[in-house]
């Protein structure tokens, strides 16, 4: 196994482009090192991107948007009060992952690139409209988060490509987001269903919405029918029921050790309603 700690993303990209066998980028290592220790994946090339300048930075840009370094940890996000005020749902989703110890290492980028449909931060990023900057042999490109995962453990990133930044849109006025997941316990578990809702209001009426579902299909889903079900409404009971129905209809889950098809399909609707109510209250400024 070859271990590298490049000083720039261009160098990281070049190392990956020229590597043979299995390559893994190492940020927090909360997936990569666990897989290595349990003999699931033994990389031939390990490229540690934590030592590149600025990868821990959380920056609010002039236009109100945010740029996060790829090694910014869950703990650093949770401790950043302004980020939490703008995007409470996204920060809470990240904060649900693992233990306190894991939070000191785990990153949004790692959670995305691990390719798990049950990743907690990914539905929240998709609902928020987050994009990632991808550095590759031919330069940088910007990709929507929903276009990164292509299946369990798989992403659309090509050989030699590495995520070099996370771009979170400006919150803007009258907006709110929320993420809820179902686990049978109270913490330290993996989502059986995850739902993120991000919306904007004009008065009491929802004018924009994005709804994303996790752990109910081979990839995290962005469900337009869910958004349509609540846009133009004041989130009345009929809209909530339509939202739940759309969420359940979008599910394409499996039966496995963590849950059943029937359970996931049903609970996706239940959580969609509950998350939408939280996001709505946040948009109204009624709930932190």
């Amino acid at each position: 196994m070859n271990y590298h700690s490049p000083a720039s993303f261009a160098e990281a990209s070049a190392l990956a482009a020229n590597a043979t066998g299995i390559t893994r980028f190492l940020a927090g290592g909360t997936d990569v090192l666990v897989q290595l220790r349990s003999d699931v994946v033994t990389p031939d090339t390990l490229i540690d991107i934590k030592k590149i300048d600025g990868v821990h930075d959380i920056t609010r840009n002039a236009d109100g948007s945010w740029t996060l370094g790829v090694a910014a940890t869950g703990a650093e996000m949770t401790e950043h009060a302004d980020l939490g005020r703008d995007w409470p749902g996204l920060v809470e989703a990240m904060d649900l992952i693992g233990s306190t110890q894991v939070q000191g290492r785990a990153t949004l980028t790692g959670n995305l690139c691990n390719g798990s449909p049950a990743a907690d931060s990914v539905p929240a990023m998709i609902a928020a409209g987050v994009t990632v900057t991808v550095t590759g042999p031919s330069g940088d490109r910007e990709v929507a988060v929903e276009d990164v995962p292509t299946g369990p453990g798989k992403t659309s990133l090509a050989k030699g490509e590495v995520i070099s930044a996370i771009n979170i849109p400006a919150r803007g006025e009258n907006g709110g987001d929320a993420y809820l997941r179902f686990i049978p316990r109270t913490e330290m578990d993996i989502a059986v269903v995850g739902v993120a809702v991000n919306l904007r209001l004009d008065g009491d009426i929802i004018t924009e919405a994005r709804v994303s579902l996790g752990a109910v299909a081979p990839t995290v889903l962005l469900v337009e029918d869910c958004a349509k079900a609540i846009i133009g409404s004041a989130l009345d009971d009929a809209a909530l029921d339509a939202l739940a129905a759309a969420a359940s209809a979008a599910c394409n889950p499996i039966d496995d050790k963590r849950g059943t098809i029937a359970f996931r399909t049903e609970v996706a609707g239940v959580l969609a309603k509950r998350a939408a109510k939280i996001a709505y209250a946040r948009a109204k400024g009624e709930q932190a």
Partner: protein
Amino acid sequence: MALDDRKSEFTFVGTRPDRPDGLDKVTGRAKFGADMSAPGMLHGAILRSPHAHARIVKIDTSKAEAHKDVKAVVTRADFADVPFKPGLEGEFWNVLENVMAGEKALYDGHAVAAVAASSALAARDALKLIEVEYEVLPHVTDVDKAMAPDAPVIREGAADYSVPEGMHPNVVRYHESGHGDVEAGFAEADLIIEDSFVTEATHQGYIEPHACLGMLGNDGKGELWCTTQGHWIAQKTCAALLGIETSQLRVTASEIGGGFGGKTTVFIEPVALALSRKANRPVKIVMTRSEVFRATGPTASASMDVKIGMKKDGTISAAQGVFRLQGGAFPGAPGDMTAMCAFAPYNLTNVKQIGYDVMSNRPKQAAYRAPGAPMGAFAVESVIDELCKKLGLDPVDVRLKNAAHEGTKASYGPRYERIGLVETLEAAKAHPHYTAPLKPGQGRGISCGFWFNHGGETSVSLALSEDGSAQLMVGTPDIGGSRASMALMAAEVLGIPYENIRVTIADTATLGYNDVSHGSRVTYASGLATIKAAKHAVEKLCERAAAKWDIPVEAVKWENGCAVPSGPNAGDFDPMPLADITADMGRTGGPISGHFEATPEGAGVSFGTHIVDAEVDPETGKTSITRYTVIQDAGKAIHPTYVEGQFQGGAAQGIGWALNEEYIYGEDGRLQNSIFLDYRIPVASDLPMIDTVIVEVPNPGHPFGVRGVGETGIVPPLAAIANAVSNAAGVRMKQLPMSPPRILAALKDNNG
């Protein structure tokens, strides 16, 4: 065993001092199984079957042996030729077959070969060089399917004498007991409920994985350090499996990070010794969590049918149950225990119970706190709850009406001596929890539970030092604060402060055979032996005082740590403190020690009653336990804090078993969830504060009245929680765990 020297007034017993091992444990100084190293030490690793059932056609270890870091490779051929016998008579063969597969791999995770290498990583990598050719065979992991006529046969000839003719060869032991005429009893009933219940296998979930360091020379002399609940059984078993003399192997028990019954046998210890003998170097093996789940003993899973008849006034007129337990690919599932415990809390005229021990392609079950009893209680107490509901009766009153007491003929045969079940039920009824209002969506459940406590072979020594302090050597690993309890009991007899007594878990070379720390026996049996050993030392102290005063020893008694004349006629002497006697004991007759060994038979039986409130989210089926109260008879609580700890621990593990813990097997017979992420043991935030009430109805078989408390606490929770959840959800839950998908499906069926 009746005792005439009972004590009921105490100075030290019943207080709550800090535990003697506390500082070591909180500072990391305590040495657990994996904390021991030796010069020249190698690391062992074990290759495990990926198949649930397969014939081992060939094992080629040549590539592993050729690896530069590998110093030894062992397979079954490197162990002794232990004779096969049916049932539990052949337990050494069963353990050997489990420790290292013979002709067949019998479950996913079954050990087939092992290597010792110069590093743990090299050992792990070397396993990949071992080539095993398997012929995959049909498998079965479900208890009912394993009994069906077309089930694959795990092993012909494993059944013992108890199994009736015509049963499938996978049924290896059979139990039937009871009294009265159940058919006549059912005819008297106003309401009969008959239902079937299922529980899944759960793991003890101890945080410390199995770990050991073994050294065995070609002279047949060995040393073993391991995490275990019983180092004498480890000594005896390892010696048998390796073909050496028992006394030539010295075993030292490490500190133990939880056992709960699962560390009462051996898994890696004989393998480390076999590797060491071959490599002529010490070998350390530490299991991964996945190995612990796949290859060490979970509980049995169970399928049960229970039928109970009740009169309108709540009297149980008849009860019968059939309990089928699978315990993996070996005899030992405690179907007999389940059957005997199921109805034991009740005074029944007509009762009949049948238990089956069934083999399947799963790991060899191991004891887990009151093995077999929680499942039976789940089935029986669920049916009683349903009867109470249908007849409009209070569940505590019905249990009080039927409760066993002193003189009751137990469902499994003998008559009870003094027991405390009624007292736990009365305490439950009087507890504010029982009448506290419930919120919408919440339900309350209660259950009683019974367990046989155990005595077992016990040997304890006590040695006094010149300064008047004492060393106490016990042979039962401290799994629940027993060093504190032993020191309190010794302090009570000697009359010296608790802090002046150092309690050590002696190795196998220091004391005679001590049975395992199981059967809730340690505070009872090692405690009894500690009291007797201390009294033995007191006799000698009195002799020295008598000699000094020149009066007969009968004229000296021991009081508050001093020898005193037994009365005015004995003479007028100032009390002689213990330290004054020990100060010159070398000149007055030599060292003063006390010793006691026996197999005490007066452990008695144990009962508890639990009250649980549960809240069910009707939209997701998720349960939270909102309030929990454990009430149990401890006889006499020596160190009440550790008694409460045992009560709380039993409830916590019961909550996990009831709600989310389960062994999940795929169609391929492989375990799907061999990590703590997917084997859902409760985390701290899942649990409410678990309230405790210690009832003290002294055990007539112990000088201070002690009853063991370690196991009974896990008997009522499955049933009590199932009753609470069923009452909250409005639908009877008959399968454990009551995971959210199962509850949501039951709610839909009920409403649909």
